[in-house]
């Protein structure tokens, strides 16, 4: 190595080391750290920030055993957060992640990006099909994690659940078990649709069978964050109101003072849910009705329990396909919206409103936890252009909040609107006729 006193050359726009280049793998440095001076070496060799490890050690082999008798036939007891062994009827409670990992604490001291182990990046080469060797009989059992997380061995009836955190995004940190039972969900959907029958599509009404509702565990990222926001713009305060002219020519005028307005707010958010599925996060009302599922948020995510596939027995699930970095723009957008909402009360003296012209956000720290949230989903496919429209009616599996999209019989609604319009026009013409 030569002692070169010249300054290093200015990096070229492209080529090695430029942003256009493929970034090196995380952790790789290019030089053996042992050859570097101790202070730099110590810094390089210091451990990376570790994610919160929520993978349950005792559930690694896929067989989920009753702590009392060791049987694998475990289900969630409907309407509770309890797991029940179908063999010995032993019941036990999963650990709440809130206390177990301290997810509700330290929001004010949040710095950097903390990612729980179930919210880690998805590896592209990991298959969604998981194969287990049955510990009971040695047969191979396959679980397709795209839609389900448990399977039964066809030979010895052992039940398997995907509990180890494979890098395909299927295993979250926590799960919020269903509280609303199926009968309850069916009743809510029926009640919701009964209020929307008159102009509903005829086929929808004929085929309406709320008993076909399915319980789905949807993937979400639950985000805690600490941020500050600055907004700037102009506000106006009314100083004078006066009218000019008389009779029909009377017009009202306003005078106002214009102010330059700036606001700053520091805030923390607790448990903001973001869809971690690309498909579900797309709320384009022209193409889908995912906004329905979005509307039944939020959930009481504080009560989520540590991941255990037994909670999903009998339900389907959707797989996460979005990483933290994909969701960051969405988070920032929502934090900005929250900030704008927070500053509203402080500009109430501007009685003619405020026009915000610029806004800035500084995210100090975020904590990401991946979670399965329970949704009762009824769907109806309305045929039409571009593949038609899939209408959802969704019931929040915890709070029972119900929202839905009921397809419309267009001609009926148009006829009603035109009839009412004609009636109103008739009244208008009558008034005009009698006054002239």
């Amino acid at each position: 190595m030569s002692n070169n006193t010249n300054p290093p050359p200015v990096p070229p726009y492209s080529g090695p080391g430029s942003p256009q280049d493929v970034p090196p793998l995380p952790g790789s440095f290019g030089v053996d750290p042992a050859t570097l001076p101790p202070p730099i070496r110590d810094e390089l060799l210091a451990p990376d920030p570790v994610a919160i490890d929520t993978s349950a050690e005792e559930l690694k082999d896929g067989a989920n055993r009753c702590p009392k008798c060791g049987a694998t036939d475990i289900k969630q007891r409907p309407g509770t957060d309890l797991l029940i062994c179908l063999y010995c009827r032993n019941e036990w409670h999963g650990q709440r992640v809130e206390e177990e990992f301290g997810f509700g604490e330290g929001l004010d001291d949040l710095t950097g990006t903390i990612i729980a182990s179930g919210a880690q990046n998805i590896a592209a080469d990991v298959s969604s099909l998981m194969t287990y060797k049955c510990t009971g009989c040695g047969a191979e059992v396959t679980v397709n994690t795209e839609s389900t997380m448990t399977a039964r061995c066809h030979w010895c009836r052992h039940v398997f659940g995907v509990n180890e955190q494979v890098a395909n995004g299927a295993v979250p940190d926590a799960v919020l078990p269903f509280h609303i039972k199926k009968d309850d969900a069916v009743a809510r959907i029926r009640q919701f649709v009964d209020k929307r029958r008159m102009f509903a599509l005829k086929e929808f009404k004929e085929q309406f069978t709320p008993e076909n509702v399915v319980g789905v565990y949807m993937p979400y990222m639950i985000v805690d964050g600490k941020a500050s926001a600055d907004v700037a713009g102009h506000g106006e305060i009314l100083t004078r109101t006066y009218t000019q002219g008389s009779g029909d020519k009377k017009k009202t005028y306003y005078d106002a003072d214009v102010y330059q307005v700036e606001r700053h707010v520091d805030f923390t958010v607790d448990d903001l849910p973001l869809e971690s599925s690309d498909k579900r996060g797309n709320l384009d009302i022209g193409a889908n009705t995912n906004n329905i599922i979005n509307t039944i948020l939020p959930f009481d995510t504080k009560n989520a329990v540590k991941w255990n596939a037994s909670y999903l027995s009998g339900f389907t699930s959707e797989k996460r396909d979005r990483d933290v970095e994909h969701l960051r723009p969405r988070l920032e957008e929502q934090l900005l919206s929250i900030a704008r909402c927070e500053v509203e009360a402080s500009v109430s003296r501007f009685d003619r409103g405020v026009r915000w012209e610029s806004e800035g956000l500084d995210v100090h720290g975020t904590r990401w936890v991946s979670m399965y949230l329970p949704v009762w989903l009824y769907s109806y496919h309305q045929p039409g252009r571009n593949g038609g429209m899939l209408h959802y009616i969704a019931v929040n599996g915890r709070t029972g909040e119900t929202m839905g999209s009921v397809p419309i019989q267009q001609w009926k609604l148009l006829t009603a609107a035109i009839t009412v319009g004609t009636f109103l026009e008739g009244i208008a013409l009558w008034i005009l006729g009698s006054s002239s």
Partner: protein
Amino acid sequence: MSDDGGLALLLLGPAGGAGLYWALYRYYRNTDKSHAFERETTVDAKPVTGAERDRKVDEVKGTRETRIDGDNVREYRKRVARIRGDSS
């Protein structure tokens, strides 16, 4: 009756019909609904600062508008020019 008032009255029919159509459409399809995270998330905010720096920069005389042009104080989700800080 004046021409203005007469015209407004004549528009009553089409406006009423269209208004009813959209109101019912939204009631059935709920296309305007989404998660109200601004209200429904637990937000712990420190007191908002900056009010002391409000300063009068201009005056408006004799406008017929009841609100400031481009009022977006309640449109939280309408993004405006983003200032990018050097951190984060």
